[in-house]
Protein backbone atom coordinates (compact mmCIF):
# COMPACT_ATOMS: atom_id res chain seq x y z
CA UNK A 1 0.00 0.00 0.00
CA UNK A 2 3.05 2.22 0.05
CA UNK A 3 2.24 3.54 -3.40
CA UNK A 4 -1.02 4.95 -2.03
CA UNK A 5 1.01 7.45 -0.06
CA UNK A 6 2.19 9.11 -3.25
CA UNK A 7 -1.23 10.54 -3.95
CA UNK A 8 -3.21 12.87 -1.72
CA UNK A 9 -6.55 11.65 -0.41
CA UNK A 10 -8.68 13.73 -2.80
CA UNK A 11 -6.44 13.64 -5.88
CA UNK A 12 -7.00 11.50 -8.94
CA UNK A 13 -3.81 12.05 -10.94
CA UNK A 14 -0.33 13.24 -10.12
CA UNK A 15 2.60 13.72 -12.46
CA UNK A 16 6.00 13.63 -10.84
CA UNK A 17 9.01 14.77 -12.86
CA UNK A 18 7.67 13.57 -16.19
CA UNK A 19 10.26 13.74 -18.98
CA UNK A 20 10.38 12.44 -22.52
CA UNK A 21 12.70 13.34 -25.35
CA UNK A 22 12.72 12.51 -29.04
CA UNK A 23 16.31 12.43 -30.18
CA UNK A 24 17.85 15.54 -28.72
CA UNK A 25 14.55 17.36 -28.31
CA UNK A 26 13.13 17.43 -24.81
CA UNK A 27 9.41 17.46 -25.58
CA UNK A 28 8.39 17.29 -21.92
CA UNK A 29 10.93 18.23 -19.31
CA UNK A 30 10.45 17.50 -15.61
CA UNK A 31 6.73 18.26 -15.60
CA UNK A 32 4.74 17.87 -12.38
CA UNK A 33 1.15 18.67 -11.49
CA UNK A 34 -1.73 17.18 -9.57
CA UNK A 35 -5.44 16.95 -10.39
CA UNK A 36 -8.10 16.70 -7.69
CA UNK A 37 -11.22 14.58 -7.97
CA UNK A 38 -14.06 16.30 -9.86
CA UNK A 39 -11.71 19.05 -10.99
CA UNK A 40 -11.70 20.52 -14.49
CA UNK A 41 -8.02 21.03 -15.16
CA UNK A 42 -6.60 22.84 -18.18
CA UNK A 43 -3.16 22.32 -19.67
CA UNK A 44 -2.16 25.29 -21.81
CA UNK A 45 0.90 26.46 -23.64
CA UNK A 46 1.95 27.87 -27.01
CA UNK A 47 2.22 25.61 -30.07
CA UNK A 48 4.81 22.90 -29.62
CA UNK A 49 4.87 23.31 -25.84
CA UNK A 50 4.48 19.55 -25.36
CA UNK A 51 0.85 19.41 -24.24
CA UNK A 52 -0.23 16.56 -26.48
CA UNK A 53 3.02 14.74 -25.79
CA UNK A 54 2.25 14.99 -22.07
CA UNK A 55 -1.21 13.52 -22.82
CA UNK A 56 0.30 10.69 -24.79
CA UNK A 57 2.65 9.96 -21.90
CA UNK A 58 -0.20 9.88 -19.39
CA UNK A 59 -2.24 7.52 -21.56
CA UNK A 60 0.88 5.42 -22.27
CA UNK A 61 0.90 5.95 -26.03
CA UNK A 62 4.44 7.11 -25.31
CA UNK A 63 6.52 5.62 -22.53
CA UNK A 64 8.12 8.51 -20.64
CA UNK A 65 11.88 8.41 -20.10
CA UNK A 66 11.63 9.55 -16.51
CA UNK A 67 9.00 10.33 -13.97
CA UNK A 68 6.01 8.75 -12.30
CA UNK A 69 2.33 9.09 -13.11
CA UNK A 70 0.15 8.16 -10.14
CA UNK A 71 -3.51 7.51 -10.77
CA UNK A 72 -6.34 6.58 -8.42
CA UNK A 73 -8.34 3.91 -10.29
CA UNK A 74 -12.05 3.08 -10.15
CA UNK A 75 -11.58 1.01 -6.99
CA UNK A 76 -9.62 3.69 -5.17
CA UNK A 77 -6.27 1.97 -5.57
CA UNK A 78 -3.33 4.11 -6.56
CA UNK A 79 -1.19 2.81 -9.40
CA UNK A 80 1.73 4.05 -11.46
CA UNK A 81 0.41 4.30 -15.01
CA UNK A 82 3.81 3.75 -16.60
CA UNK A 83 3.63 0.13 -15.50
CA UNK A 84 0.55 -0.55 -17.66
CA UNK A 85 0.34 -1.23 -21.41
CA UNK A 86 -1.66 1.30 -23.40
CA UNK A 87 -4.79 -0.83 -23.83
CA UNK A 88 -5.14 -1.38 -20.07
CA UNK A 89 -5.36 2.30 -19.21
CA UNK A 90 -9.10 2.52 -19.90
CA UNK A 91 -9.77 -0.34 -17.49
CA UNK A 92 -8.40 1.81 -14.67
CA UNK A 93 -10.92 4.54 -15.49
CA UNK A 94 -8.78 6.88 -17.58
CA UNK A 95 -10.02 7.61 -21.08
CA UNK A 96 -9.17 10.14 -23.78
CA UNK A 97 -10.27 11.85 -26.96
CA UNK A 98 -8.01 12.81 -29.84
CA UNK A 99 -6.96 16.09 -31.36
CA UNK A 100 -8.07 14.96 -34.84
CA UNK A 101 -11.24 13.02 -34.16
CA UNK A 102 -10.49 9.29 -34.32
CA UNK A 103 -13.77 7.60 -35.22
CA UNK A 104 -14.61 4.71 -37.53
CA UNK A 105 -16.24 6.25 -40.58
CA UNK A 106 -17.86 3.04 -41.81
CA UNK A 107 -19.68 2.38 -38.53
CA UNK A 108 -22.85 4.02 -37.26
CA UNK A 109 -22.60 6.60 -34.51
CA UNK A 110 -24.13 4.10 -32.08
CA UNK A 111 -21.56 1.43 -32.96
CA UNK A 112 -18.80 3.98 -32.56
CA UNK A 113 -20.01 4.73 -29.06
CA UNK A 114 -20.23 0.99 -28.34
CA UNK A 115 -16.52 0.65 -29.11
CA UNK A 116 -16.11 2.59 -25.88
CA UNK A 117 -17.80 -0.32 -24.11
CA UNK A 118 -15.26 -2.81 -25.46
CA UNK A 119 -13.90 -3.66 -22.02
CA UNK A 120 -17.39 -4.11 -20.55
CA UNK A 121 -18.18 -7.23 -22.59
CA UNK A 122 -17.79 -10.25 -20.36
CA UNK A 123 -19.25 -13.04 -22.49
CA UNK A 124 -16.82 -15.21 -24.45
CA UNK A 125 -16.39 -15.08 -28.22
CA UNK A 126 -18.02 -18.48 -28.51
CA UNK A 127 -21.07 -17.17 -26.67
CA UNK A 128 -21.09 -14.13 -28.95
CA UNK A 129 -20.66 -16.26 -32.07
CA UNK A 130 -23.65 -18.38 -31.14
CA UNK A 131 -25.54 -15.37 -29.75
CA UNK A 132 -26.46 -17.06 -26.49
CA UNK A 133 -29.13 -15.49 -24.34
CA UNK A 134 -26.51 -14.01 -22.02
CA UNK A 135 -24.50 -12.50 -24.87
CA UNK A 136 -27.63 -10.97 -26.40
CA UNK A 137 -28.71 -9.52 -23.05
CA UNK A 138 -25.26 -8.02 -22.54
CA UNK A 139 -25.24 -6.44 -26.01
CA UNK A 140 -28.76 -5.08 -25.49
CA UNK A 141 -27.91 -3.58 -22.09
CA UNK A 142 -24.78 -1.83 -23.38
CA UNK A 143 -26.67 -0.67 -26.48
CA UNK A 144 -29.29 0.88 -24.20
CA UNK A 145 -26.58 2.57 -22.16
CA UNK A 146 -24.98 3.94 -25.34
CA UNK A 147 -28.33 5.38 -26.42
CA UNK A 148 -28.68 7.02 -23.02
CA UNK A 149 -25.26 8.62 -23.37
CA UNK A 150 -26.20 9.87 -26.85
CA UNK A 151 -29.46 11.26 -25.47
CA UNK A 152 -27.53 13.00 -22.71
CA UNK A 153 -25.35 14.67 -25.34
CA UNK A 154 -28.47 15.40 -27.46
CA UNK A 155 -27.33 13.52 -30.57
CA UNK A 156 -29.46 10.39 -30.18
CA UNK A 157 -31.50 11.30 -33.26
CA UNK A 158 -28.47 10.59 -35.42
CA UNK A 159 -27.42 7.33 -33.79
CA UNK A 160 -28.05 5.08 -36.80
CA UNK A 161 -26.24 7.31 -39.29
CA UNK A 162 -22.70 6.54 -40.36
CA UNK A 163 -20.00 8.53 -38.61
CA UNK A 164 -18.38 9.39 -41.94
CA UNK A 165 -19.94 12.55 -43.34
CA UNK A 166 -21.26 13.96 -40.07
CA UNK A 167 -20.38 17.57 -39.20
CA UNK A 168 -17.27 18.09 -37.12
CA UNK A 169 -19.18 19.31 -34.06
CA UNK A 170 -21.22 16.09 -34.00
CA UNK A 171 -18.10 13.92 -34.39
CA UNK A 172 -16.52 15.67 -31.41
CA UNK A 173 -19.61 14.84 -29.36
CA UNK A 174 -19.59 11.22 -30.54
CA UNK A 175 -16.00 10.91 -29.41
CA UNK A 176 -16.97 12.34 -26.04
CA UNK A 177 -19.89 9.91 -25.81
CA UNK A 178 -17.47 7.07 -26.50
CA UNK A 179 -15.36 8.06 -23.51
CA UNK A 180 -18.39 8.12 -21.22
CA UNK A 181 -19.25 4.45 -21.84
CA UNK A 182 -16.52 3.26 -19.46
CA UNK A 183 -17.68 5.36 -16.46
CA UNK A 184 -14.33 7.13 -16.25
CA UNK A 185 -12.63 8.67 -13.24
CA UNK A 186 -10.70 11.06 -15.45
CA UNK A 187 -11.42 12.13 -19.03
CA UNK A 188 -8.62 13.63 -21.10
CA UNK A 189 -9.82 15.92 -23.87
CA UNK A 190 -7.29 16.88 -26.54
CA UNK A 191 -8.36 20.25 -27.99
CA UNK A 192 -12.12 19.69 -27.71
CA UNK A 193 -12.95 23.12 -29.18
CA UNK A 194 -10.70 22.88 -32.25
CA UNK A 195 -12.80 23.33 -35.36
CA UNK A 196 -15.95 24.38 -33.50
CA UNK A 197 -17.73 27.69 -34.10
CA UNK A 198 -18.47 30.22 -31.32
CA UNK A 199 -21.90 28.85 -30.43
CA UNK A 200 -20.62 25.25 -30.38
CA UNK A 201 -17.76 26.32 -28.13
CA UNK A 202 -20.16 27.87 -25.62
CA UNK A 203 -22.23 24.66 -25.68
CA UNK A 204 -19.06 22.65 -25.18
CA UNK A 205 -18.27 24.47 -21.93
CA UNK A 206 -21.70 23.50 -20.60
CA UNK A 207 -21.31 19.93 -21.82
CA UNK A 208 -17.97 19.56 -20.04
CA UNK A 209 -19.49 20.86 -16.80
CA UNK A 210 -22.54 18.61 -17.01
CA UNK A 211 -20.34 15.60 -17.77
CA UNK A 212 -18.33 16.36 -14.63
CA UNK A 213 -21.49 16.66 -12.54
CA UNK A 214 -23.31 13.65 -13.94
CA UNK A 215 -20.43 11.20 -14.19
CA UNK A 216 -18.65 12.50 -11.11
CA UNK A 217 -15.28 12.53 -12.83
CA UNK A 218 -12.35 14.86 -13.31
CA UNK A 219 -11.56 16.39 -16.70
CA UNK A 220 -8.11 17.24 -18.02
CA UNK A 221 -8.10 19.28 -21.21
CA UNK A 222 -5.62 20.76 -23.61
CA UNK A 223 -7.05 23.75 -25.40
CA UNK A 224 -6.00 26.78 -27.40
CA UNK A 225 -9.33 28.56 -27.13
CA UNK A 226 -8.55 30.74 -24.09
CA UNK A 227 -12.15 31.81 -23.57
CA UNK A 228 -13.15 28.20 -23.13
CA UNK A 229 -10.21 27.43 -20.87
CA UNK A 230 -10.76 30.47 -18.65
CA UNK A 231 -14.50 29.84 -18.58
CA UNK A 232 -14.58 26.16 -17.75
CA UNK A 233 -11.39 25.28 -15.87
CA UNK A 234 -11.08 25.23 -12.10
CA UNK A 235 -7.32 25.14 -12.35
CA UNK A 236 -4.81 25.66 -15.12
CA UNK A 237 -1.25 24.54 -15.66
CA UNK A 238 0.82 26.47 -18.21
CA UNK A 239 3.85 24.96 -19.89
CA UNK A 240 6.32 26.14 -22.51
CA UNK A 241 9.03 24.18 -24.34
CA UNK A 242 8.04 21.17 -22.26
CA UNK A 243 8.81 22.99 -19.02
CA UNK A 244 6.44 23.88 -16.21
CA UNK A 245 5.61 27.60 -16.06
CA UNK A 246 2.83 28.10 -13.55
CA UNK A 247 -0.24 26.52 -12.02
CA UNK A 248 -3.23 28.26 -10.52
CA UNK A 249 -6.77 29.49 -10.99
CA UNK A 250 -7.63 31.10 -14.36
CA UNK A 251 -7.25 34.57 -12.78
CA UNK A 252 -3.80 33.79 -11.39
CA UNK A 253 -2.64 32.38 -14.72
CA UNK A 254 -3.85 35.42 -16.62
CA UNK A 255 -1.86 37.70 -14.35
CA UNK A 256 1.26 35.51 -14.30
CA UNK A 257 4.20 37.36 -15.86
CA UNK A 258 5.92 34.24 -17.17
CA UNK A 259 2.78 32.99 -18.88
CA UNK A 260 2.24 36.36 -20.50
CA UNK A 261 5.84 36.31 -21.70
CA UNK A 262 5.46 32.83 -23.16
CA UNK A 263 2.35 33.79 -25.11
CA UNK A 264 3.03 37.38 -26.04
CA UNK A 265 6.81 37.52 -25.99
CA UNK A 266 9.09 39.64 -23.79
CA UNK A 267 9.37 43.35 -24.30
CA UNK A 268 12.88 44.26 -25.38
CA UNK A 269 14.73 45.59 -22.36
CA UNK A 270 15.98 49.07 -22.97
CA UNK A 271 19.68 48.81 -22.28
CA UNK A 272 21.21 52.09 -21.27
Amino acid at each position, binding site marked *: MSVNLHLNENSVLKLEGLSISFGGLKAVDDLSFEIKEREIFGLIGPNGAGKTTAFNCITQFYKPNHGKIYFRDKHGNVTNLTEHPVHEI*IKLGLVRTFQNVELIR*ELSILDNVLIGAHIDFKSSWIAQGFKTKKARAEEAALRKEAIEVLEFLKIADRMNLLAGGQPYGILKKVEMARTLMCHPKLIILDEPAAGLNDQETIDLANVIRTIRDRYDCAVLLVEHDMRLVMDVCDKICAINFGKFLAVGTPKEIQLNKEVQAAYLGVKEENHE
Partner: protein
Amino acid sequence: MKNKFNVKKNQNLSYLIFGAVLCTLPLWIELGVLKNSYLTLIGSVLIYSVAAIGLNLLLGWSGLISLGTAGFMGLGAYIAAYVTVNLKLPFEVSLLLGLAIPLVIGVLVGLISLRIEGLYLAIATLSVSEILRKSFEELGWFTNGFSGKSAVYPKLLGFITLDKYTTYILLVFFLIAVMILVNNLINGQMGRALNAMRGSEAAAQAMGVNLLKYRLVAFALATSLAALSGVLYMSFIKYTYPATWTLGMSLNILAVIIIGGVRNLYGTVLGAFVVFAMPDLFLKQIPYFGTMPGFAYIVNGILIILVILFYPRGLIYIGNDFKKLWGKLKARVAR
Protein backbone atom coordinates in the same frame (compact mmCIF):
# COMPACT_ATOMS: atom_id res chain seq x y z
CA MET B 1 -38.83 -9.96 -31.07
CA LYS B 2 -41.06 -8.57 -33.78
CA ASN B 3 -38.03 -8.49 -36.06
CA LYS B 4 -37.28 -12.14 -35.55
CA PHE B 5 -39.06 -13.25 -38.70
CA ASN B 6 -38.33 -10.20 -40.81
CA VAL B 7 -35.71 -11.20 -43.40
CA LYS B 8 -34.54 -7.63 -43.92
CA LYS B 9 -33.92 -7.10 -40.21
CA ASN B 10 -32.71 -10.58 -39.33
CA GLN B 11 -29.59 -11.38 -41.35
CA ASN B 12 -29.25 -14.87 -39.93
CA LEU B 13 -32.72 -15.82 -41.12
CA SER B 14 -31.83 -14.62 -44.59
CA TYR B 15 -28.70 -16.82 -44.51
CA LEU B 16 -30.83 -19.83 -43.58
CA ILE B 17 -33.18 -19.14 -46.48
CA PHE B 18 -30.19 -18.68 -48.78
CA GLY B 19 -28.89 -22.05 -47.60
CA ALA B 20 -32.26 -23.70 -48.22
CA VAL B 21 -32.29 -22.30 -51.76
CA LEU B 22 -28.77 -23.63 -52.36
CA CYS B 23 -29.87 -27.05 -51.11
CA THR B 24 -32.40 -27.33 -53.94
CA LEU B 25 -29.67 -27.47 -56.59
CA PRO B 26 -29.49 -31.31 -56.71
CA LEU B 27 -33.23 -31.30 -57.26
CA TRP B 28 -32.94 -29.09 -60.38
CA ILE B 29 -30.22 -31.34 -61.71
CA GLU B 30 -32.31 -34.48 -61.14
CA LEU B 31 -35.22 -32.78 -62.90
CA GLY B 32 -32.93 -32.09 -65.83
CA VAL B 33 -33.32 -28.31 -65.62
CA LEU B 34 -29.62 -27.76 -64.91
CA LYS B 35 -26.56 -29.57 -66.21
CA ASN B 36 -24.85 -32.17 -64.06
CA SER B 37 -21.57 -30.26 -64.13
CA TYR B 38 -23.17 -27.32 -62.34
CA LEU B 39 -23.08 -29.24 -59.07
CA THR B 40 -19.27 -29.38 -59.04
CA LEU B 41 -19.12 -25.78 -60.16
CA ILE B 42 -21.46 -24.36 -57.51
CA GLY B 43 -19.97 -26.69 -54.90
CA SER B 44 -16.52 -25.24 -55.56
CA VAL B 45 -17.94 -21.73 -55.34
CA LEU B 46 -19.24 -22.58 -51.84
CA ILE B 47 -15.86 -24.06 -50.86
CA TYR B 48 -13.91 -21.01 -52.01
CA SER B 49 -16.48 -18.73 -50.37
CA VAL B 50 -15.52 -20.17 -46.97
CA ALA B 51 -11.85 -19.29 -47.47
CA ALA B 52 -12.78 -15.89 -48.90
CA ILE B 53 -14.94 -15.09 -45.86
CA GLY B 54 -11.86 -15.80 -43.74
CA LEU B 55 -9.74 -13.44 -45.85
CA ASN B 56 -12.51 -10.85 -45.70
CA LEU B 57 -12.35 -10.96 -41.91
CA LEU B 58 -8.64 -10.29 -42.18
CA LEU B 59 -8.47 -7.78 -45.03
CA GLY B 60 -11.95 -6.28 -44.95
CA TRP B 61 -12.62 -5.95 -41.27
CA SER B 62 -9.15 -5.87 -39.73
CA GLY B 63 -7.23 -4.18 -42.54
CA LEU B 64 -4.45 -6.79 -42.64
CA ILE B 65 -3.20 -8.20 -45.94
CA SER B 66 -2.42 -11.88 -46.33
CA LEU B 67 -1.26 -13.73 -49.42
CA GLY B 68 -1.03 -17.03 -47.60
CA THR B 69 -4.58 -18.30 -48.03
CA ALA B 70 -3.69 -21.02 -50.54
CA GLY B 71 -1.03 -22.60 -48.33
CA PHE B 72 -3.43 -23.06 -45.44
CA MET B 73 -6.19 -24.30 -47.73
CA GLY B 74 -3.80 -26.91 -49.09
CA LEU B 75 -2.71 -27.88 -45.60
CA GLY B 76 -6.33 -28.45 -44.59
CA ALA B 77 -6.95 -30.50 -47.74
CA TYR B 78 -3.89 -32.74 -47.31
CA ILE B 79 -4.53 -33.32 -43.61
CA ALA B 80 -8.13 -34.29 -44.39
CA ALA B 81 -6.93 -36.77 -47.03
CA TYR B 82 -4.15 -38.20 -44.89
CA VAL B 83 -6.36 -38.68 -41.83
CA THR B 84 -9.23 -40.36 -43.68
CA VAL B 85 -7.28 -42.40 -46.29
CA ASN B 86 -3.97 -43.28 -44.61
CA LEU B 87 -4.99 -43.33 -40.96
CA LYS B 88 -8.53 -44.57 -41.71
CA LEU B 89 -9.99 -42.23 -39.11
CA PRO B 90 -13.54 -40.83 -39.37
CA PHE B 91 -14.42 -37.59 -41.15
CA GLU B 92 -15.04 -35.77 -37.86
CA VAL B 93 -11.44 -36.40 -36.75
CA SER B 94 -10.11 -35.18 -40.08
CA LEU B 95 -12.22 -32.05 -39.74
CA LEU B 96 -10.92 -31.45 -36.23
CA LEU B 97 -7.26 -32.05 -37.12
CA GLY B 98 -7.61 -30.24 -40.44
CA LEU B 99 -8.72 -27.17 -38.50
CA ALA B 100 -6.49 -27.52 -35.43
CA ILE B 101 -3.09 -28.06 -37.07
CA PRO B 102 -3.34 -25.10 -39.50
CA LEU B 103 -4.74 -23.03 -36.62
CA VAL B 104 -1.70 -23.75 -34.45
CA ILE B 105 0.68 -23.05 -37.34
CA GLY B 106 -1.29 -19.91 -38.17
CA VAL B 107 -1.08 -18.62 -34.60
CA LEU B 108 2.67 -19.28 -34.50
CA VAL B 109 3.15 -17.50 -37.83
CA GLY B 110 0.92 -14.70 -36.60
CA LEU B 111 2.84 -14.27 -33.37
CA ILE B 112 5.99 -13.63 -35.38
CA SER B 113 4.67 -11.82 -38.44
CA LEU B 114 1.85 -9.68 -37.03
CA ARG B 115 4.37 -7.26 -35.57
CA ILE B 116 4.87 -6.04 -39.12
CA GLU B 117 2.18 -4.41 -41.25
CA GLY B 118 1.00 -3.74 -44.76
CA LEU B 119 3.10 -5.05 -47.63
CA TYR B 120 5.61 -6.69 -45.33
CA LEU B 121 2.90 -8.82 -43.78
CA ALA B 122 1.79 -9.78 -47.31
CA ILE B 123 5.35 -10.85 -48.12
CA ALA B 124 5.70 -12.81 -44.88
CA THR B 125 2.43 -14.69 -45.40
CA LEU B 126 3.32 -15.32 -49.05
CA SER B 127 6.58 -16.97 -48.02
CA VAL B 128 4.78 -19.13 -45.44
CA SER B 129 2.39 -20.21 -48.17
CA GLU B 130 5.26 -21.04 -50.52
CA ILE B 131 7.02 -23.04 -47.78
CA LEU B 132 3.80 -25.03 -47.33
CA ARG B 133 3.44 -25.58 -51.09
CA LYS B 134 7.04 -26.76 -51.37
CA SER B 135 6.41 -29.14 -48.45
CA PHE B 136 3.41 -30.57 -50.31
CA GLU B 137 5.76 -31.36 -53.20
CA GLU B 138 8.49 -32.88 -51.07
CA LEU B 139 6.71 -34.76 -48.29
CA GLY B 140 5.67 -37.76 -50.37
CA TRP B 141 4.57 -39.93 -47.43
CA PHE B 142 2.03 -37.25 -46.51
CA THR B 143 0.95 -35.77 -49.85
CA ASN B 144 1.94 -38.33 -52.47
CA GLY B 145 4.01 -35.58 -54.07
CA PHE B 146 3.45 -34.38 -57.63
CA SER B 147 1.19 -37.27 -58.62
CA GLY B 148 -1.47 -35.93 -56.28
CA LYS B 149 -3.53 -37.34 -53.47
CA SER B 150 -7.05 -38.69 -53.70
CA ALA B 151 -9.72 -39.12 -51.04
CA VAL B 152 -13.27 -40.43 -50.81
CA TYR B 153 -16.62 -38.86 -49.96
CA PRO B 154 -16.90 -38.40 -46.20
CA LYS B 155 -18.59 -40.88 -43.91
CA LEU B 156 -20.45 -39.03 -41.15
CA LEU B 157 -20.51 -40.47 -37.61
CA GLY B 158 -18.89 -43.62 -38.99
CA PHE B 159 -21.94 -44.98 -40.81
CA ILE B 160 -23.64 -42.32 -42.98
CA THR B 161 -21.71 -42.53 -46.25
CA LEU B 162 -22.28 -39.44 -48.34
CA ASP B 163 -22.51 -39.30 -52.10
CA LYS B 164 -22.05 -36.36 -54.45
CA TYR B 165 -25.38 -34.74 -53.61
CA THR B 166 -25.23 -35.17 -49.85
CA THR B 167 -21.62 -33.93 -49.74
CA TYR B 168 -22.87 -30.85 -51.57
CA ILE B 169 -25.51 -30.40 -48.84
CA LEU B 170 -22.67 -30.70 -46.30
CA LEU B 171 -20.87 -27.84 -48.05
CA VAL B 172 -23.99 -25.70 -47.89
CA PHE B 173 -24.32 -26.51 -44.18
CA PHE B 174 -20.75 -25.43 -43.45
CA LEU B 175 -20.95 -22.27 -45.54
CA ILE B 176 -24.20 -21.14 -43.90
CA ALA B 177 -22.85 -22.00 -40.42
CA VAL B 178 -19.74 -19.94 -41.15
CA MET B 179 -21.82 -17.04 -42.48
CA ILE B 180 -24.04 -17.00 -39.39
CA LEU B 181 -21.14 -17.30 -36.94
CA VAL B 182 -19.08 -14.63 -38.69
CA ASN B 183 -22.12 -12.37 -38.97
CA ASN B 184 -22.75 -12.69 -35.22
CA LEU B 185 -19.13 -11.97 -34.39
CA ILE B 186 -18.68 -8.98 -36.68
CA ASN B 187 -21.85 -7.31 -35.46
CA GLY B 188 -20.74 -7.60 -31.87
CA GLN B 189 -17.80 -6.72 -29.69
CA MET B 190 -15.22 -8.48 -31.86
CA GLY B 191 -16.40 -6.85 -35.08
CA ARG B 192 -16.33 -3.41 -33.54
CA ALA B 193 -12.84 -4.05 -32.19
CA LEU B 194 -11.62 -5.21 -35.62
CA ASN B 195 -13.27 -2.21 -37.27
CA ALA B 196 -11.69 0.11 -34.73
CA MET B 197 -8.31 -1.48 -35.36
CA ARG B 198 -8.64 -0.82 -39.08
CA GLY B 199 -10.12 2.66 -38.71
CA SER B 200 -7.83 4.04 -36.04
CA GLU B 201 -5.24 2.06 -34.15
CA ALA B 202 -4.86 4.86 -31.64
CA ALA B 203 -8.59 4.95 -30.85
CA ALA B 204 -8.72 1.17 -30.64
CA GLN B 205 -5.90 1.10 -28.11
CA ALA B 206 -7.38 3.95 -26.09
CA MET B 207 -10.66 2.00 -25.89
CA GLY B 208 -8.88 -1.04 -24.52
CA VAL B 209 -8.40 -3.12 -27.66
CA ASN B 210 -5.21 -5.16 -27.42
CA LEU B 211 -3.95 -4.80 -30.99
CA LEU B 212 -1.73 -7.89 -31.08
CA LYS B 213 -4.47 -10.04 -29.57
CA TYR B 214 -7.10 -8.96 -32.09
CA ARG B 215 -4.73 -9.18 -35.03
CA LEU B 216 -3.94 -12.67 -33.90
CA VAL B 217 -7.63 -13.54 -33.55
CA ALA B 218 -8.39 -12.25 -37.05
CA PHE B 219 -5.39 -14.13 -38.44
CA ALA B 220 -6.34 -17.34 -36.61
CA LEU B 221 -9.94 -17.11 -37.85
CA ALA B 222 -8.81 -16.51 -41.42
CA THR B 223 -6.39 -19.43 -41.20
CA SER B 224 -8.93 -21.86 -39.83
CA LEU B 225 -11.55 -20.83 -42.38
CA ALA B 226 -8.98 -21.37 -45.15
CA ALA B 227 -8.21 -24.78 -43.66
CA LEU B 228 -11.93 -25.61 -43.39
CA SER B 229 -12.24 -24.68 -47.03
CA GLY B 230 -9.40 -27.10 -47.78
CA VAL B 231 -11.05 -29.93 -45.81
CA LEU B 232 -14.31 -29.34 -47.70
CA TYR B 233 -12.40 -29.23 -50.99
CA MET B 234 -10.95 -32.66 -50.29
CA SER B 235 -14.37 -34.07 -49.33
CA PHE B 236 -16.05 -32.80 -52.48
CA ILE B 237 -13.38 -32.71 -55.22
CA LYS B 238 -11.61 -35.76 -53.71
CA TYR B 239 -8.30 -35.11 -55.46
CA THR B 240 -5.53 -32.56 -55.09
CA TYR B 241 -1.95 -31.92 -56.18
CA PRO B 242 0.55 -29.27 -55.04
CA ALA B 243 0.16 -26.98 -58.07
CA THR B 244 -3.40 -26.11 -56.94
CA TRP B 245 -2.16 -24.23 -53.89
CA THR B 246 -0.01 -21.55 -55.47
CA LEU B 247 0.05 -17.77 -55.21
CA GLY B 248 -2.47 -17.79 -58.08
CA MET B 249 -5.07 -19.34 -55.76
CA SER B 250 -4.39 -16.78 -53.00
CA LEU B 251 -4.76 -13.99 -55.53
CA ASN B 252 -8.00 -15.50 -56.81
CA ILE B 253 -9.38 -15.52 -53.27
CA LEU B 254 -8.26 -11.91 -52.92
CA ALA B 255 -10.02 -11.11 -56.20
CA VAL B 256 -13.18 -12.72 -54.78
CA ILE B 257 -13.54 -10.18 -52.00
CA ILE B 258 -12.42 -7.19 -54.07
CA ILE B 259 -14.90 -8.03 -56.84
CA GLY B 260 -17.71 -9.30 -54.63
CA GLY B 261 -17.70 -7.00 -51.68
CA VAL B 262 -15.30 -6.02 -48.95
CA ARG B 263 -16.95 -6.47 -45.53
CA ASN B 264 -20.01 -8.11 -47.05
CA LEU B 265 -20.76 -11.82 -46.69
CA TYR B 266 -23.20 -12.15 -49.60
CA GLY B 267 -20.74 -10.11 -51.62
CA THR B 268 -18.06 -12.68 -50.86
CA VAL B 269 -20.23 -15.51 -52.18
CA LEU B 270 -21.09 -13.43 -55.26
CA GLY B 271 -17.40 -12.73 -55.79
CA ALA B 272 -16.58 -16.44 -55.53
CA PHE B 273 -19.25 -17.10 -58.15
CA VAL B 274 -17.82 -14.46 -60.49
CA VAL B 275 -14.22 -15.64 -60.09
CA PHE B 276 -14.65 -19.40 -59.96
CA ALA B 277 -17.88 -20.20 -61.81
CA MET B 278 -18.17 -17.49 -64.47
CA PRO B 279 -15.23 -18.78 -66.55
CA ASP B 280 -16.81 -22.22 -66.97
CA LEU B 281 -20.39 -21.03 -67.18
CA PHE B 282 -20.10 -18.17 -69.63
CA LEU B 283 -16.59 -17.34 -70.78
CA LYS B 284 -15.96 -20.75 -72.35
CA GLN B 285 -19.04 -20.23 -74.53
CA ILE B 286 -17.48 -17.18 -76.14
CA PRO B 287 -16.13 -18.18 -79.57
CA TYR B 288 -12.37 -18.01 -80.17
CA PHE B 289 -11.50 -16.16 -76.91
CA GLY B 290 -13.24 -18.70 -74.71
CA THR B 291 -10.71 -21.43 -75.44
CA MET B 292 -7.71 -19.15 -75.04
CA PRO B 293 -5.66 -20.21 -72.01
CA GLY B 294 -5.61 -17.58 -69.29
CA PHE B 295 -8.64 -15.77 -70.72
CA ALA B 296 -10.37 -15.98 -67.33
CA TYR B 297 -7.41 -14.17 -65.73
CA ILE B 298 -7.68 -11.35 -68.26
CA VAL B 299 -11.41 -11.00 -67.61
CA ASN B 300 -10.80 -11.05 -63.84
CA GLY B 301 -8.20 -8.33 -64.20
CA ILE B 302 -10.53 -6.14 -66.23
CA LEU B 303 -13.34 -6.85 -63.78
CA ILE B 304 -11.22 -5.81 -60.80
CA ILE B 305 -10.38 -2.52 -62.50
CA LEU B 306 -14.03 -1.89 -63.42
CA VAL B 307 -15.28 -2.81 -59.97
CA ILE B 308 -12.74 -0.59 -58.22
CA LEU B 309 -13.67 2.27 -60.54
CA PHE B 310 -17.45 1.97 -60.31
CA TYR B 311 -18.21 -0.17 -57.24
CA PRO B 312 -15.30 0.36 -54.87
CA ARG B 313 -17.23 -1.44 -52.14
CA GLY B 314 -17.91 -4.47 -54.33
CA LEU B 315 -20.24 -5.77 -57.00
CA ILE B 316 -22.87 -6.69 -54.41
CA TYR B 317 -23.82 -3.00 -54.21
CA ILE B 318 -24.88 -3.08 -57.87
CA GLY B 319 -28.30 -4.03 -56.49
CA ASN B 320 -28.72 -0.55 -54.99
CA ASP B 321 -28.25 0.99 -58.42
CA PHE B 322 -30.84 -1.32 -59.94
CA LYS B 323 -33.26 -0.28 -57.22
CA LYS B 324 -32.60 3.40 -57.96
CA LEU B 325 -33.02 2.81 -61.69
CA TRP B 326 -36.27 0.93 -61.05
CA GLY B 327 -37.50 3.80 -58.88
CA LYS B 328 -36.69 6.32 -61.61
CA LEU B 329 -38.45 4.21 -64.25
CA LYS B 330 -41.51 3.88 -62.05
CA ALA B 331 -41.57 7.64 -61.46
CA ARG B 332 -41.30 8.27 -65.19
CA VAL B 333 -44.10 5.85 -65.99
CA ALA B 334 -46.30 7.38 -63.30
CA ARG B 335 -45.78 10.79 -64.82
